[in-house]
Each structure stands twice: as structure tokens, then as C-alpha cells.
């Protein structure tokens, strides 16, 4: 069995060599080919031809983290499903019940997250909040 993993090792080695080789080749090519004229437009970040607004160092939205968190928890669940799926046919109905309980417990978590609106990119509560805020700002502008 260990010998089968030599395939993986070969793939890994070739992959690493390819990566390092292409990086070195790109480095060499750019060393040879790049022009030596610098101006402001060339040094700015490329944003599809638009003028960039602000810096690149922005704070990420917390929503990314919540999604990643939910992903990790359910990924662990999937890893538990693998060995069960391998032996499911031999163990029969009892194993099915056991795994159903396992999944049902985690479904409670999914239901919680879903009901609280964490799976929506824009939360329902924040839509109304943003609407209020924008109407306020609108009012201030009118007031001025």
C-alpha cells in the first residue's frame, strides 16, 4: 500500500519542480524583457483600466469569516461520513440510524445559521438599517 503513494510523491515532485521552474523562467523573462521607464500610471494598481479608489489594504468583511467557519464545521462532518460510507453496506440499518442521528444534530446548527440569516450575504435586518441610514443622509442633504 505504501508503494501506491510513490505515485503521489512523483506527482508532488513534478508539481514542485514545475512551479519553481516556471517562477524562475518568468523571473528571467521579465528581467530580460521589461522596459526601464517608470511613470505614475504604470505604478498604480491595475483595476481594469479604472482609476483605483483608495489603497489595497482594506479591512475584510466579517461575513467572509462566518461563511468560512460554517464551511469548516460541515467539512469535518463530511470527513466523518467517509469511513461510514465505506462500511455502510456491511453494517446495515443500524449504521444508517447512527449516521442519521449524527447528521440530524448538525442539521440543527444549519437551521440555526439559516434562520438567523448568516447565509445571506446581505442580512434582512441590515437592509432595513441601510435604508434608514440612506434616507437619513438623504434628509441631511436636503436639509443643507
Amino acid at each position, binding site marked *: *500500500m*505504501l508503494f501506491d503513494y510513490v505515485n503521489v510523491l512523483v506527482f508532488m515532485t513534478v508539481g514542485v519542480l514545475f512551479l519553481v521552474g516556471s517562477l524562475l523562467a518568468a523571473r528571467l523573462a521579465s528581467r530580460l524583457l521589461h522596459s526601464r521607464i517608470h511613470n505614475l500610471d504604470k505604478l498604480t494598481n491595475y483595476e481594469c483600466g479604472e482609476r483605483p479608489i483608495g489603497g489595497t*489594504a482594506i479591512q475584510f468583511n466579517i461575513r467572509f469569516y462566518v461563511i468560512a467557519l460554517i464551511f469548516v464545521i460541515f467539512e469535518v462532518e463530511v470527513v466523518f461520513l467517509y469511513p461510514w460510507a465505506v462500511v455502510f453496506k456491511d453494517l446495515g440499518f443500524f449504521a444508517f440510524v447512527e449516521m442519521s442521528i449524527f447528521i440530524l444534530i*448538525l442539521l*440543527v*446548527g444549519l437551521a440555526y445559521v439559516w434562520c438567523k440569516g448568516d447565509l445571506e450575504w446581505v442580512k434582512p435586518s441590515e437592509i432595513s438599517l441601510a435604508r434608514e441610514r440612506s434616507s437619513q443622509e438623504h434628509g441631511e442633504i436636503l436639509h443643507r
Partner: protein
Amino acid sequence: MLLVIIFTIFAAITIISAGMVAFSQNIVYSAFSLLFTFFGIAGLYVLLAADFLAATQLLIYVGGILVLLLFGVMLTHKIQEVNLSNESMRLAPAAIVVLAFLGLLSIAIYRTQWPTVPVPELTPTTARIGTLFMTDYLLPFEIASLVLLTALVGAVFIARGRVKK
């Protein structure tokens, strides 16, 4: 001989990148060194005939926990200040404590008679692990799902929390 060379390569990758994790001044370098540590450890698992656990190591640690840690880095650091926010201190007392424990454990490893002989035949482990989960370790298995549920609800609740000003 061949096996020893492969083992040495994986062990070296693991230990060097672990050192990078703990001592690098740049937190992004630390996070990416952790990737190589996890890879090296997965390689060691393969050498130890734990094939399913090697895959699990890559799935959970590299695919899950490392991504979470990177999100944590991105959420708590602006890119310019990444270099500054990672100095170390208390090095001398910590080194004394660690060296003392290290010496103790080295003596223990050196002096003990470890079992050497009956290296088992290398066979796929997934089915046997599944059977153990469904029979002997049924209760921990179900409790693991409770742990995951609690972690999910708690972490989402904390991460969502409103900022007090």
C-alpha cells in the same frame, strides 16, 4: 534506506516550517509556513500506514483550519502593519522552561525500550476505522457531532456580535 531518506525529507520540512511558524516576524509567512508543516505531517502519516488520516489531515487542517487562520489574519491586520505587529518577548525564561522539558523528554525517549519488531502489514484503514466508529466508539462519535454543533452556534454568535462603543 530509501524510507529513511523520505522520512528525513518530510521531518525536515515539518520541523523547519514549524520553526518558521513560531519565529517568523511576518504573520503571513507564519500562516503559510503552517501549510508546509501540515503537509509534512501528512507525509509522516503516510509513512506510518495511516492513509485515511493523511487525507483527513489535508482536508481538515489545510483545507479548513488554515483557511480560517488566514481569514483571521486578513480580518485583524491591515497589509501595511503586518510586519510590525508580531514581535516576541520573554525569550529567556521561556527558553529555560522549554529546554528543561526538552531535556527531560529526550532522556525519557533515549532510556525507554520501545517496541520495535512486529511492524504490521500495510493495509487500507478506512473500512476498519468506519467499523470502529459504528461499534466501539459510537458514543464519542455522536458526541463529536454535538461538539461541532456547539462550536458552530457559539462561534457564529460570537463573530456576529455587535461592537460596543
